[in-house]
């Protein structure tokens, strides 16, 4: 874990709120001088309360939004100078909501092969072959090929979204709360799948979540965000055993995790 695949240098993003013909816009600092390195092959988790700027950060990393100040380097080059096609092929997203992240008017096959069509280097047959291959990898039956999103369950949809992100063989995958809309059982499957694919395809993940347990389960390193700033960044073990900032401690305290089976206490009864 030496090379930084993606590197944020002092990135800020300011939104102008309101502001019409006769009023001054209000400024909102969604990101405030954030610097962060994403190393090759690691899983970096980003946690923080709602509105702390996690999604804004991911949008900037994906090139969907431009930082107000600072720069993002990919493989040592500024993403502003990188050809868009090359960048999108190597960095792919997975979004939170499996219900809205798939176009309801397209079939699974059309959705998954889209990145290949955009690359424009593959024949029809070739694309179909790769989609089938990927469905296999995702452990989805081939008959799903011509299904529409509305015909699938949330977990299946999220798999399709993962498939779409992986078909162009990217190096970095940015996951913005990929499991928070899912049931625990489905979440477990998706998490496991993501981790298996990581090993198989040699992927680097930026994993955004507000669920500390999930983060502990999969991440190598954790960055904690609060109000547009990174307040703490550490190895996963270090963070959970020795949280440094107050905010992190508070976060850890309010997390609801199932107690270990051994030390279950009838919590409510005793209080």
């Amino acid at each position: 874990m030496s090379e930084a695949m993606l590197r944020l240098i002092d990135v800020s993003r300011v939104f102008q709120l309101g502001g019409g013909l006769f009023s001054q816009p209000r400024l909102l600092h969604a990101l405030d001088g954030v610097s962060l390195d994403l190393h090759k092959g690691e899983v970096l988790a980003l946690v923080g309360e709602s509105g702390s700027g996690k999604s804004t950060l991911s949008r900037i990393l994906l090139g969907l939004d431009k930082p107000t100040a600072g720069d993002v380097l990919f493989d040592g080059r500024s993403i502003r100078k990188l050809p868009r096609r090359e960048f999108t092929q190597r960095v792919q997203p997975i979004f939170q909501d499996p219900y809205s992240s798939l176009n309801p008017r397209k079939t699974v096959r059309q959705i998954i092969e889209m990145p290949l069509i955009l690359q424009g280097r593959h024949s029809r047959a070739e694309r179909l072959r790769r989609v089938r291959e990927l469905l296999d990898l995702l452990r989805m039956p081939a008959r799903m090929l011509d299904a529409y999103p509305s015909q699938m369950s949330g977990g299946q949809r999220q798999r399709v979204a993962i498939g779409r992100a992986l078909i162009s063989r990217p190096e970095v995958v940015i996951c913005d709360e990929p499991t928070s809309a899912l049931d625990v059982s489905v979440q477990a499957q998706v998490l496991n799948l993501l981790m298996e694919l990581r090993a198989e395809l040699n992927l680097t993940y930026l994993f955004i979540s507000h669920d500390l347990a999930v983060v502990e389960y999969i991440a190598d390193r954790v960055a904690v965000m609060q109000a547009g700033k990174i307040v703490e960044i550490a190895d996963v073990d270090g963070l959970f055993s020795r949280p440094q900032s107050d905010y992190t401690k508070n976060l850890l305290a309010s997390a609801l995790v199932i107690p270990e089976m051994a030390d279950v206490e009838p919590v409510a009864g005793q209080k």
Partner: protein
Amino acid sequence: MSSPSLEQGLSNQIADLRPTPSQLMWRRARNHRGLAIGSLIVFIVLLCGLAAPFIAPHDPYAQDLTKRLLPAVWSENGTWEHVFGTDALGRDYLSRILYGARISFLIGISAALGSCLIGAALGLLAGYYGGRVDSVVTFFVSVRLALPVVLVALATVSLFGGKLWIVVAVLSLLLWDRFAVVVRSATMQLRSQEFVVAARAMGCSTPRILLGELLPNLVGPLVVVGSLEIAHAILLESALSFLGLGVQPPTPSWGLMVAEGKGMIFFDSRLIALPGAAIALLVLGINLVGDGVRDVLAPEGKA
């Protein structure tokens, strides 16, 4: 449908496929009474229009001044020669009503298509880009809404004459607002959906997103608004013709026929009742279809 609770969770992978969206739509469409009645009306009127050259008993333009204002077959002196009688120039009324269906459809559909093109384009741009583009389009829409349609249409048609294409062009230029508004708000909703963001993140170009990702999702609202606008255009054309500033004679337009027969309303009411009822029936049918399509596409409860 198998029990939905089984589809999720543990039995995720073995779950059967639910019906496709189009299957669901068909199912809803088949059970929709209004849609059935509306489609039947529209189908019959359309058939009358298309088959007019074969089923019309006479040439709708052939005048014979010696056979003026013959009564309809159900009146005292009616004959089967002229089922609906003849008009003031001795033209067969049934044939004119049959041919009139063509005019109404032609005007309704082309005006709706024209305005759909304008409105959808503006609405897409406004909804997708937002910000300044949106302000400009919203301004256009306000200006358009502020113009009183009937008056402006009257003024324009009176200036440029009542050629069919002019009427269509004027109506297209005046009826695009609802398309723009609906497409704009639908696009705004879609724009924030993650599949659009995903498409951008994957490197789709803007035209591809607009036409490939967004447009297919707008077909539903467009069809609904389109059908309402067809009806609207037909009504508006008939009103313009009634005021003497729509399509010109001898075109067998229903609105024009009402206008031509208007003078005789108290003496020979068939002259107005028949074309008027034809307009009402067709518009009713189209509206029923429009409502039906909306119900089928967006069943109550979930979109």
